[in-house]
């Protein structure tokens, strides 16, 4: 029986080929558009967030109390070893880094500039973060004696230094005296985070803390957890364990990013809704007319004894076939496009100035996720079924004899 229904449905679809194709095309184009936008925008979003998290704050950052308001070198984390022990022992924590941050001066024979110092452990940072991926020249290392620096690309330009050149750094130590030392440029980095590229100097943690006379001093711990779901839980347990430290999640340090992410999700939802409304309209329109056109046919079928159930089946199957075809074509197109941009990235370097100003990369990589395809499938299914309902109602109400008499 089903085979017959299927045959009839297919036949009637093919009879009005251009009409069928139009609807299928409409659904697939809108699905393709939706997938493209979703994947691209989400890709952009995640990149932005990752840039911030991986090069700066991790998923959770820990400071001494009040440090964020007054970044004073005299207000460092009081028990860094204790914190480190906790981070090592808790299985929820995937990786961590410790940093010492301070302001001061970087100078060459020609220029001097105020800079922000980030004293880090290069090996740990390589494991956890993405900083090393942004190296433009040189290496992500401070040399064998820890006497190297990695500076932001724009800063390097202003100071007119290259790899191997000397930089004199000065900063106020804890004894209020100004301490200076000579270091060699071992790497130049471009993170697309303007603040860093313009004014950051990365150097070896031990070297810097000795210079400032705070051996072993740490101003921030930044770490990642095994799963983003765990972030809040870990934050709570850590804050409880170390009440005189401040523990922040990344979205508390960069609330703008979280807001952008939320806004993007909303935007996708609205677009998806619009697209599917249009799809539904298209299917309803077609199905309605298609059924009304063949009311004579259906009338005859009923008259010779076909049950309404089976007639309804034809209509339903037609509707589903259209929807399914649209979904398949659209998913293939969209999936392929997304895959292409996932691998190759969308090159928008002509807008690079704008991107850099907002901390984004000019080449955006799309994201593909299973639920991009699952939601549309469900939606189209529902749209197809619902679209069949009105015509079915009309059929149900119709009187077979009158129907046959229709033209």
């Amino acid at each position, binding site marked *: 029986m089903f085979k017959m229904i299927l045959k009839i449905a297919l036949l009637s679809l093919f009879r009005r080929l251009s009409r069928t194709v139009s609807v299928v095309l409409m659904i697939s184009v809108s699905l393709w558009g939706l997938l493209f936008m979703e994947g691209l925008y989400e890709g952009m979003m995640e990149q932005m967030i990752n840039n911030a998290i991986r090069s700066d704050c991790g998923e959770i950052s820990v400071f001494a109390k009040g440090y964020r308001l007054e970044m004073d070198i005299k207000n460092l984390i009081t028990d860094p070893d204790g914190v480190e022990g906790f981070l090592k022992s808790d299985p929820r924590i995937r990786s961590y880094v410790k940093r010492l941050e301070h302001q001061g001066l970087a100078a*060459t024979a020609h220029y*001097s500039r105020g800079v922000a110092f980030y004293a880090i452990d290069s090996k740990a940072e390589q494991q956890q973060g993405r900083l090393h991926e942004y190296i433009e020249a040189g290496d992500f290392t401070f040399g064998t004696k820890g006497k190297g620096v990695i500076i932001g690309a724009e800063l390097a330009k202003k100071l007119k230094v290259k790899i191997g050149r000397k930089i004199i750094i000065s900063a106020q130590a804890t004894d209020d*005296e100004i301490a200076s030392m000579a270091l060699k440029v071992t790497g130049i980095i471009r993170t697309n985070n303007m603040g860093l590229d313009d004014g950051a100097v990365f150097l070896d943690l031990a070297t810097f803390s000795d210079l400032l006379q705070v051996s072993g001093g740490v101003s921030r711990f930044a770490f990642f957890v095994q799963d983003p779901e765990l972030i809040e839980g870990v934050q709570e347990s850590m804050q409880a364990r170390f009440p005189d430290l401040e523990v922040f999640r990344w979205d508390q340090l960069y609330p703008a990013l979280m807001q952008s992410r939320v806004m993007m999700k909303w935007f996708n939802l609205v677009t998806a809704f619009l697209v599917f409304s249009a799809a539904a309209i298209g299917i309803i329109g077609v199905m309605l007319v298609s059924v009304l056109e063949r009311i004579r046919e259906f009338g005859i079928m009923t008259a010779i004894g076909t049950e309404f159930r089976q007639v309804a089946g034809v209509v339903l199957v037609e509707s589903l076939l259209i929807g399914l075809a649209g979904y398949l074509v659209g998913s293939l197109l969209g999936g392929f496009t997304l895959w292409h941009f996932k691998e190759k990235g969308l090159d928008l370097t002509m807008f690079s100035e704008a991107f850099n100003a907002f901390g984004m990369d000019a080449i955006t990589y799309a994201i593909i996720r299973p639920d991009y395809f699952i939601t549309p499938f469900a939606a189209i299914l529902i749209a197809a079924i619902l679209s069949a309902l009105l015509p079915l109602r009309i059929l149900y109400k119709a009187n077979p004899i009158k129907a046959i008499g229709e033209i």
Partner: protein
Amino acid sequence: MKHYLLTILCLLFIFVDHCPAEEMDIDTLMQQVEEALNGKTAQMNLTMRVKTSRLERTIKMESYSVGKDKSFIKITYPRKDTGVTFLKIDNAMWQYVPRIERVIKIPASMMLQSWMGSDFTNDDLVRESSIADDYHCKLIEKGDEYLVELIPKEDAPVVWGKLLMWISKEHLIPTKVRYFDEENQPVRVLFYNEFKKFGDKMYPSKWVMENETIEKKGNQTIMEITEAVFDQPVADHYFTKRALKQFSQ
């Protein structure tokens, strides 16, 4: 024969006495140069002229210093800047501005800014890196003057790539110092001219710093020492923060 040798030896000794530097090694030479330049103590009246393409400014000051570690400067001209005092102890620097009646400690970020608009930076006045501590010295030429090449030591916190110093054989004081960046481009040159006698000491009374970079070519700062007394004891009370305000008048 023996007499002949003896005469020659005596002559040699005489020569040695008159030209001691001939036999001295470079490090001792440089040590003497530094001592001669700084003196154990110094009290000076100076006039500084700053010339840029746009204007020319004259400042007069009194300066008191003990070695390189402590110095006190008071501006005496022009009227607008009279009473401004500077105190340097080791690496730190303070200044007092009578117009606002405050003592300000100069932060790291301002250390490399020009001092009073001249071609000298705050850092030049404060740090005056020690030749012995920070540089390897190599004697290059021994013509009319010594030409010494100074290469910064590996860890020395000096921005220069190298220095070339011409030293007067007679006075063991530099006559010219040229500062190079790491690409071997000259950045600035300092002339020590017009040697005069101050008390017992022969000392350059005119220091001229010229900027050799493309951007600031032609800029000059000229320091003239109008009076100087060397190696007399200088009262300790000059080198306190109280002194900044006290001696402003």
